[in-house]
C-alpha cells in the first residue's frame, strides 16, 4: 500500500470520527481479510463470523482513540482481531488452532529438488505444532497475510527488530530441519 493510499484511507477514518456512516467504506474493504485472518486461527466459520463482527464493533467503539502512525488502517483492525481471538481462546481454554491452506504452504516452501511429498507435509505440520505460538503468529502474518515487519510489530505489539528476529529464528529452524528453501530466500 502506497503512502498516498494510506493517507487517503486516514482521511476516511477522520471522516468516520465525525460521521460514523463513513466507516462503511472501511468495513467493506477489510471485512474479508479480517474474516479469513480469524478463520485461519479458529477453523470455524461461525466463530470467525462472530469474532469478525466483534472486531468491527470494537473498532467503531474505540475509533476516537485511534492514532494514525503511517500504517494502513487494516493494521489496527488486525490488532483488534488478534486480541479478540486471544480472548476467545482464554475463555474457552482449548488448544489454539492454526488452519493453513496447502497451497499457501506450497508457496512458502519451495523444495530445492522440486519434489513435494505427503511425508514432508506431515513432518512440516508436526514441526509447526511445536513452534511457540508467537512464532507462528509472526510467520502467519509475514507469509500468509503478506505484512511487512513494521505492520507485524504494530499488530503483535512488539518492536520491529523483535518481529524480524522471531521470523528469522522460525525460518532458520525450517531450513535446518527440512533442508528447504523458503519464500523470500535470496
Amino acid at each position, binding site marked *: 500500500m502506497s503512502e498516498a493510499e494510506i493517507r487517503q484511507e486516514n482521511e476516511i477514518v477522520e471522516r468516520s470520527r465525525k460521521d460514523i456512516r463513513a466507516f462503511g467504506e472501511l468495513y467493506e474493504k477489510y*471485512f474479508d481479510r479480517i474474516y479469513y485472518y480469524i478463520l485461519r486461527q479458529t477453523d470455524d466459520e461461525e466463530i470467525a463470523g*462472530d469474532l469478525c463482527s466483534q472486531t468491527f464493533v470494537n473498532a467503531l467503539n474505540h475509533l476516537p482513540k485511534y492514532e494514525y502512525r503511517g500504517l494502513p488502517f487494516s493494521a489496527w483492525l488486525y490488532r483488534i482481531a488478534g486480541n479478540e481471538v486471544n480472548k476467545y481462546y482464554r475463555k474457552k481454554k482449548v488448544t489454539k488452532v492454526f488452519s493453513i491452506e496447502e497451497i499457501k504452504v506450497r508457496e512458502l516452501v519451495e523444495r530445492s529438488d522440486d519434489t513435494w511429498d505427503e511425508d514432508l507435509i506431515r513432518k512440516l505440520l508436526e514441526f509447526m505444532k511445536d513452534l511457540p505460538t508467537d512464532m507462528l503468529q509472526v510467520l502467519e502474518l509475514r507469509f500468509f497475510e503478506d505484512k511487512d515487519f513494521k505492520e507485524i510489530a504494530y499488530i503483535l505489539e512488539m518492536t520491529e527488530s523483535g518481529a524480524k528476529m522471531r521470523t528469522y529464528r522460525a525460518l532458520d529452524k525450517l531450513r535446518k530441519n527440512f533442508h528447504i528453501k523458503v519464500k523470500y530466500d535470496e
Partner: protein
Amino acid sequence: MSKNDIRLRRQRFARGADRYRNYGAVMERHEKEKKLKIVIRAFSMFLVALIVIMLIVILGRLEKKSRTTHKPTVSGQVITVRGQIV
C-alpha cells in the same frame, strides 16, 4: 503435548464470508454499546455523588452528636490565687 493444533486445508477456504457481512448489524451493536456505556457512566457518577452526599451527612451527624455528648468539663485541679481558692 503440542503447543498448537495445526490443520492443513487441502482446498482454499470456501468464499463464505458474505454470510457474515452485515454492516447494519455492526452499526446497531455499536449504537447499543454506546448507549449502554452512557447509562453505565451516568449510573457510576450518580453512585459516586450519592456516596459523597451520604458521607457528608454521616460526618455532619457524627459531629453534631459529639458536640451534644461532650459537655465542657471542669478539671479537678484547684487553682489558687494569692492563697484563695478560685
